[in-house]
């Protein structure tokens, strides 16, 4: 199971930039279809908000790949 978690870590690492790419592509397509201020604001907000979250997913994937989730901490001194 730990091996599976680590292997999937690679998937999560890649998923972050892939999601960013698709989000940006859809945003640009939609803005090109309807180049009005409402469309630009909406998709601009989505990109601004979801990009850092996608980075977080990549970091999560990195930790998974490194085996950081093989055993979860049960005490504070295991976290600090």
């Amino acid at each position, binding site marked *: 199971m730990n091996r599976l978690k680590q292997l999937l870590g690679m998937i999560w690492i890649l998923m972050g930039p892939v999601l960013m790419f698709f989000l940006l592509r859809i945003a640009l397509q939609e803005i090109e279809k309807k180049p009005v201020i409402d469309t630009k604001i909406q998709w601009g907000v989505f990109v601004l908000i979801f990009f850092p979250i996608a980075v977080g997913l990549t970091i999560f994937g990195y930790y998974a790949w490194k085996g*950081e989730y093989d055993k979860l901490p049960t005490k504070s001194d295991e*976290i*600090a």
Partner: protein
Amino acid sequence: MLAPKGIWKVITASSVGTLIEWYDFYIFGSLATVIASQFFPKTNPTAALLSTLATFAAGFIVRPFGALVFGRLGDKVGRKYTFLLTLIIMGGSTFAIGLVPGYERIGFAAPIIVLLLRLLQGLALGGEYGGAATYVAEHSPANRRGYFTSWIQTTATLGLFFSLGVILLTRHTLDADPSKSIAKFNDWGWRIPFLVSILLVIISIYIRLKMKESPLFSRIKEEGKVSVNPLKESFGHKGNLKMVLLALFGATMGQGVVWYTGQFYAQSFIENVCKVDFDQSRTILIWAILFATPFFVVFGQWSDKVGRKWIILTGMALAIFTYRPLFNALLETVNLAKPGNAQTISESTHKSAVLPTGDSLITTTIKSNAESGLAMTEIRKDTVYTGLGKMSAKTDVKQTFKLASGGYWRMVMLVFVMIIYVTMVYGPIAAFLVELFPTKIRYTSMSLPYHIGNGVFGGLTPFIATLLTTMDTKNHLVGLWYPILVAGLCLLIGALYLNNKIDTDLSD
């Protein structure tokens, strides 16, 4: 830990204030259409509605920042004073929204002021929940933490319940004539739910002032173990950051979309896609909430016995695999009852008005009844142009349906099922989040994944789902792909990476 009587005082004091904050937050969303007409230019109703939804969404997006600001305060100064502050900010900004003059009186200052107040609401809410959940959990005995914190979990849904109830009550009691009452509500009566909340906030502030600080926080303060920099300790150290990320991607992300799909998006779908009458779309949700709310406590209590993880993930799995048939059943409830050619016209009115441009606006209202009992109102607006070269009239048709008893209760049952999923994912999650993090950075660490999961992923659900339907106008269910895919990813990560073991010791 507290004796039973003491814990109920803590729960009451926390829950009442949290409920009021949710109510304050939700009345804005529930009145999105009316607010759009008041504060945004009337030239394009769709743009105005979207702009308001964006303002609504802005309130959700800013929640994670509130989580950081007030989480930090709560871990340095204490839980009690921090979530007293959040209540004051929320109450004040809600009351102020009720006072802002409309666009017609103060122009562009109106939407800007409303947007700023909405952002303040989002900030306050971002600080409220983490404090309330942490506060109750830190008073609770370990073997009943899920049960006691689940009472806090009822407050979000009950806040929605009360917001819908107050709005409907106000909408129908401003005049003896129902249509005049609605007109008054749309004109100025919508302010009443905002203004009324200040009385409830004052009572809540009084109750909270009398509360004592969390015993666990008091202890670490006495021992000099309060965090110097909760933000750095929460997110700057790998050991804790990895748990924050796991909480988000393995739990709150999916929980957030299920929460908002089963309640907000369900109501929006019933009103805007199924075209059900305004009042019925809200009373359907009210009944479903009333029947389902006790299950927050049921699942919270059950999680004390069997663990939190699998209850939360089962709720997500059920949502993923049954949302499409459930929402399709909502559509079918109306489609099957539609009259086709067999209908009785009960009323037909015809009005003509001259527009400032010199053109004429002809409004035709037809009310009819189908054999199934479904009542339909169709309003057709034809613009007849007087100018040369403009030959044909532009027709705008709006249909709304009023369900007969059978269809109505069928919809209540369908939404009830969706809210059961909400109770499964949300009932245990306060205890789950509290148990993940140490006392000295608990408020900060649990607040951020909670508000990203709920504020960003969840809060944007109705907005993104509606946007998807504008990209594929023939597919009424296309909007569901957003919550299904987000919850699906969360289910996979949660199943593989989360631990079902309950941390009995919160004091470390």
